[in-house]
């Protein structure tokens, strides 16, 4: 009687691949949980932010609103609208901050 060499189910291969993918994703998640809990960097940053009274990230440092998109001068020159940032590489991608100041411009931003 002839034996069949290997009869394998296609689904078994799928399970192996799925397990491999899930394993990879699980590693990423585990890494995220493990490293994400590491807040030493935040602690260092926060201490500095408090000590120096910093209010913004050091991104977008090149434009006239440099460094302080959250506190930009509201009436910079060369603006399309009163609330939009000037045309500068990153400025082109920064949204006009509509909620800034929160109460609008009428009362000088006081709330």
């Amino acid at each position, binding site marked *: 009687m002839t034996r069949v060499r290997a009869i394998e189910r296609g689904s078994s291969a799928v399970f192996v691949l799925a397990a491999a993918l899930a394993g990879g994703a699980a590693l990423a998640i585990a890494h995220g949980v493990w490293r994400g809990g590491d807040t030493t960097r935040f602690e260092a940053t*926060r201490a500095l932010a408090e000590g120096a009274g910093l209010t913004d990230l050091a991104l977008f440092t090149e434009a006239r609103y440099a460094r302080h998109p959250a506190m930009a001068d509201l009436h910079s020159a060369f603006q399309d609208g009163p609330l939009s940032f000037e045309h500068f590489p990153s400025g082109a991608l920064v949204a006009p901050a509509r909620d800034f100041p929160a109460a609008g411009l009428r009362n000088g931003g006081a709330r």
Partner: protein
Amino acid sequence: MSGWWARQRYLLDYASASLWRRKGRNLVLWAIFAALVFILGSVILFGSAIRREAALVLRDAPDVVAQAMRMGRHDMALASDIAKLKSVRGADRIEGRLWGYLYDTSTDANYTLQTPSAHAPDLALQKGEAIVGEGVARLRKLSEGKHLFLVSPAGRLLKAKVKKVLSPESALVSSDLVLVSAEDFRAFFELAPDQFTDIAMRVRNPSEVGTVSGKGALALPHYRFITRANMARTYEALFSWREGLLLAIATGAILAFAILAFDKASGLSAQERREIGILKAIGWETSDIIRMKLWEAGLISVSAFVAGMTLAYLHVFAMSAPLIETVLKGWSTLYPRFALTPHVDALQVTTLAFLTLLPYIAAVLAPIWRTASADPDRVMR
């Protein structure tokens, strides 16, 4: 239940064999899907991580910043105004801040010059001393003990000994920072002793922030009061908006992909049509074929999604997102070097699953049905 699963597993057997038989075409589809998820996933992971950074960093920022306004423009704050604010009940630790920008021609970069708060003893500086951020140190090749030379637009020279280089860990807020003593700052920018850039306030009771800034606005009507919540919201909106913009652009890509998938699923070869006819003739039913085809679509899309997402994670958090950073982070000479702290947000992942899996499955549903409803007697004709 076990009967149900046994049946699904047989359908899976067939689906996997069927995918394997057309591996070239399916692999291309898979790769495009995975690449799409990879790019979008990178954007979303990066965006949520940087928003989290901003939120955490700003947690200890001043509660309220008051800026003087003159003809709608930012103006210098005066020491007398600080005194007026001190009478507002609930306001605590009010101090004038000194900060300004300096465009440095030798490195083509913008620095932020600032004086440390009086409440931070470890940042305290004597005249002629400076603390510099990681980016400044990098560009000017500075280290502790060396001297920093700056020239003001008016031609004044500042020479300061570097007391400390701020740790790269805080680069996200400090990359372009040069901290100097108030004395040096005023001399460098030719500022009168009673002038400040703006006023930072702390409020004892967090729920009183709104009230305090309201009272402040009454006391100083020509000032605008910016609360920390305002700033946090601006950042949230800013990065969400950038992400949204990128995704809106990517919608085109998703749509193109859905069309591709639709085309792939509906453009059946005569060979495939005959196979479906055979399956139905030998006892399969339309819904079996639909399920089998859905398994195929599910295998491709879900595995491509998981793979793309995992790769995006590696890209963003292990390699600092080289492919997308210019778009998402902005760019500058003095860009901070920082590794984002990993943060995976279930909402974001679910969102991405919605944005990619949903159009794909929706696009292939009708072609799958059309395939599956082929007449079984076709094979006999």
